[in-house]
Structure formats: C-alpha cells, structure tokens
C-alpha cells in the first residue's frame, strides 16, 4: 500500500501531468473509438450508428491495403538503410579524427530540421529538370529518373529524404554506445591477437545489440507514421504511389470528410502498431530486468 507521504506526493507531482494526458490523449482516444462506429460525413450534421460497417469498408478497400503496403515498404527500406549507414558512419567517427566537434555538429543538423522543410529541401534536390541529384548523376553519365513525378521512383525519393534526415539519430546513438564499450574485453581481445574485424564482431557488436534494437524501435515507430515529407514532396502521388497510411487517413478525414471512417482507419492502425509494439516492449522490459 502506498504510504500517506506517497499519496500526497502523487497528488502534487504526478496528477497534474497525468490530468493533461487524460484530457488530451485518453479522452480524444475514447471519442475516436466511439466515432469509428458511426457514419459521420462532415457536411451532414447528424450521425448514424452503423456498427462495424466502417471497419468492414476499410478491410475491403484496396486503397487501404495499398497504403499499408506503401507504409511497410517505406518503413522497411528507410529504417534498414538508416541503421546500416548509421552504424558505418558511427564507426568512422570513432576513429581518432580532428575537428570531431565540427563533424558531429554537421552530422546532427539534418535531424533537427523541421521535417516539412526537410521535405521541401529534398523536393528541390530531386527535382527532375534542375535538381542537383540528377545533375550529379548526369556528371557521371547516368540519366536520372523523374523522382517525385515518377511512380517507380517517388517512394524512393521520400525514402532517401528520410535517410538524409534520420540517419544522424542512428549515428548519434551508436556513436555514444561505442564511447562506452568497456575497455577490458577490448584489451583482452587485442592481447589474444584478435584482428580488428574479429574484435568488432565478437566484442563491439554484442555490446551494441540493445542500442541497435532501441534505435530500430524508435525509427520504425516514427517511419510508420510519416506524413510531413509525403505532404510536401509528393502529396501522396503520382496517383497513390506514395500514399502512406497516415496520409490516406488524412485524405479520408479532411478531403473526403468521412470522420467516422477515418476514425476506424486510425483504430485499425493503432491495432496493427499495438501488436508490433507489444512485442517490442516485451523485449525492452526484459532488458530493464537485465535478462538479455
């Protein structure tokens, strides 16, 4: 049982923050759940209870499955590239180099930039006529595609934009991890005559494993709900080739004005995410208890 002191502390310290969360997260969540069982077309003032119709509609909706596929491909590709590239650059930075602070700052920059503005910068980079990506490709004799305007490449433009912006996060976390690799096993490996590659695979990588898992979780969660860059770079197009789940949800709610249906789509997204995150939290929780 909580002591009197603890109950008083809870009231003073915890309750204010939790009240904000309850009013601004839990209440709207409940509202949204309720709404998902109603037919609510914004221009029509009254709503009708339709049971599971909205869910049935979405599960039978090709655009939903397309959007889910786009989101999965985006998340998979972007996160995979970011993690591999991030680890590589972190290892580079770990070598003793001059002006590390400058390099650190520069590498951090993309991460702090407003995602919508990063999308804008990337749209310019990938512009098919005067964009610099195609210009540089031209210099090495490659004729670049139309990127954001080309159905085959539009999603890749967004993937590259995300890689540009978010690889720094991976670099940073892995780099910090490298700084705290315990010295003793490293020295032991050296004494035993291990090559640098062996040291990496047998000493450093196992140590980094929990960090990499953490980065994977955070990055996938963020990538899964990407919206800003899609909005700015392609608007979901050409056609619906870059329409992610979140973007489709936005279209449903604020262009088609189908509030009930959009809520149902949000609930479905939440269920999908919960399954994945449930598994992750289970892993993290085991880590907290020190059971790796």
């Amino acid at each position, binding site marked *: 049982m909580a002591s009197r002191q603890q109950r008083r502390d809870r009231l003073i310290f915890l309750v204010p923050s939790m009240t904000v969360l309850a009013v601004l997260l839990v209440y709207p969540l409940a509202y949204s759940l309720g709404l998902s069982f109603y037919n609510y077309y914004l221009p029509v003032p009254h709503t009708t209870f339709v049971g599971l119709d909205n869910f049935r509609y979405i599960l039978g909706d090709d655009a939903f499955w397309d959007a889910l596929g786009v989101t999965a491909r985006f998340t998979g590709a972007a996160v995979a590239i970011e993690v591999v590239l991030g680890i590589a650059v972190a290892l*580079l930075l770990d070598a003793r180099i001059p002006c590390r602070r400058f390099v650190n700052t520069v590498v*951090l920059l993309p991460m702090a930039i*407003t995602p919508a503005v990063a999308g804008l*910068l990337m749209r310019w980079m990938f512009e098919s006529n005067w964009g610099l990506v195609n210009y540089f490709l031209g210099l090495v004799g490659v004729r670049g595609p139309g990127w954001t305007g080309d159905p085959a490449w539009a999603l890749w433009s967004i993937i590259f934009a995300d890689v540009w912006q978010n690889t720094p996060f991976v670099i940073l976390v892995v780099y910090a991890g490298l700084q705290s690799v315990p010295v003793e096993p490293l020295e032991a490996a050296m004494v035993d005559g291990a090559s640098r590659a062996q040291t990496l695979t047998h000493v450093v990588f196992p140590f980094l494993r929990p960090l990499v898992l953490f980065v994977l979780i955070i990055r996938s969660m963020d990538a899964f709900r990407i919206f800003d860059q899609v909005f700015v770079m392609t608007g979901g197009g050409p056609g619906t080739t870059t329409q992610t789940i979140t973007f489709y949800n936005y279209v449903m709610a604020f262009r088609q004005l189908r509030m009930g249906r959009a809520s149902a789509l949000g609930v479905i997204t939440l269920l999908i995410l919960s399954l994945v995150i449930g598994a992750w939290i289970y892993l993290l929780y085991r880590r907290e208890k020190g059971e790796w």
Partner: protein
Amino acid sequence: MVSRGVGAPRVVLARALVYLALLAVVAVSLFPIYFALTTSLKQTRDAFTTPPTWIFTPTLEHHRFIWVETPFPRYLFNTLVITIGTVLLSIPLGCMAAYYLARYRSRPIQVLLFSLLAVRAFPRILLLVPFFLVARATQLYDTHILIILIIVAFNQPFAIWLMRGFFLDVPRELPEAAMIDGCSSLQAFLRVVLPVVRPGVFTAALFTFLFAYNEFLYCLILTGSHAKPLSVAIAQYGAEKIEYWSWSAAGAVGILAPIVLFIAVMQRHLVKGLTFGTLKG
C-alpha cells in the same frame, strides 16, 4: 577504439579513406541546406538552371519580399508563442511527474512508464479527428493554446522519461534530509533536487523547444490565419509559379537559421539528451 594497422603506408591509406568517407558524409548533410541558402540569394533566373549557376550576384530581394510583403513575421510570432508556451508548460509538468516516477517504485508505476513509451508510437492522426471536431465546436480552433496543449501532451512521455533518468541519479537521502529539516516534499524538490538536475532540465527544454518548433500535422489542420506557424506557412507555398520557389527557399532559410545556430551552440546538450536515456535503459 583506435584503428591500428601494421605498416605505415597501410595506416596512411586507411586514414585517407576514413577522411574521404567523412568528407562525403559532411557534404551530403550540408548540401541541401547550402542549396536552399544559395537559391534564396539568387535572382530567380539564376536559381533554376542546368547546369546550376555556382557563381552569381546575390540578392536579398526574396528575403525582403517574404518578411515585408507577406505575413511571415506573423507566422514567426505564432511559432515563438507556440514553442515558448509549450516549454513553459511541458517542462514543469514533466519534471514533477518524472520526480515522482523516479522516487517510487511499484508494479503500476512500471506499467505507467511503459504506457507512456507507447504514446510515442501512437498514430497521431487518430486523435486529429476528435481534436478537429472539438475545436470546431468550441472556440479553440485556430488558437495558440489548443496547439500548445496538444504538443505538451505528446511531449510529456519524452520529457518524463528523459527527466526520470536524471532524477534516478540523485541520491534518495538528499530530499529526505531536507524533509527531516522541515521542508515539505515540494520544497525539498524545488530547493534541493531541482538545482542538482539543472543540466537535465535544460536538455529536456531544448528538445521540447525543437519538438514544438517542428510540429506540422496538427498545426496544418488546427490553425488558420490567426495561429498558423512557420512550418505550415512554408509548406503551403505552391509550386505553380517559379518565383514561389525562390520565396519558399527564402522562407526555408528563415526557419532553418535559428535551428542551425541552435545546434551549433547546443550540440553537447543535445547529444547528451539523445543518448542519455538510451544508455541507461
């Protein structure tokens, strides 16, 4: 870790490759920003050419235009109100909750901590519909306070987790001693514990600031001419006329400049904040 080759030429070669790779990383990181800056300073006819015009006579015309002839100062003002408001609300609330969650341990507290983590993964768009409907029904649509409250709520889990890490480092005896001397637990927190974790508070404030500064989706839907921040205003410059691109480059530079300065000055704190929670687990 330091790479150690066997012979001197191999070391030199390895070194050179490392530098080359890092140079490439730096170039790729900086180039888009450099490009936005030069585009904003070019005459429109120099800005969109193939091959790119590398040498040009700079002009401040686009910057003058957006800051003098469009409501950009208004958007900047909105951004500042939103970010500062968010920091002022979010940090005290988050610190206090974090202190409690660091001081006491129980099963429900563990569950709460992990539920908070789950908020980070939340499909935010799910809450946008209720926010929008409530905002429309009340007088809250297009107000700063609505956006501030929403960002505060979404920022709480992050602030709490980060600050909790700092509070865990404070010895329990510290507030307890103060309380034996007659402080209430709130006084002990404010006078004894808080000063110790000041760097942590600073780090949390920095991140919260960036988080609010960069918010897009909620602002896009929930603000109009009154409370619209920079992030949304810039994204809404269409691409129909080529001049628009120059203007939006100038706008992009306007919104980026503070971030670049911020990062340059605060680099160490940001790195600490990002890696801190991670390494503690």
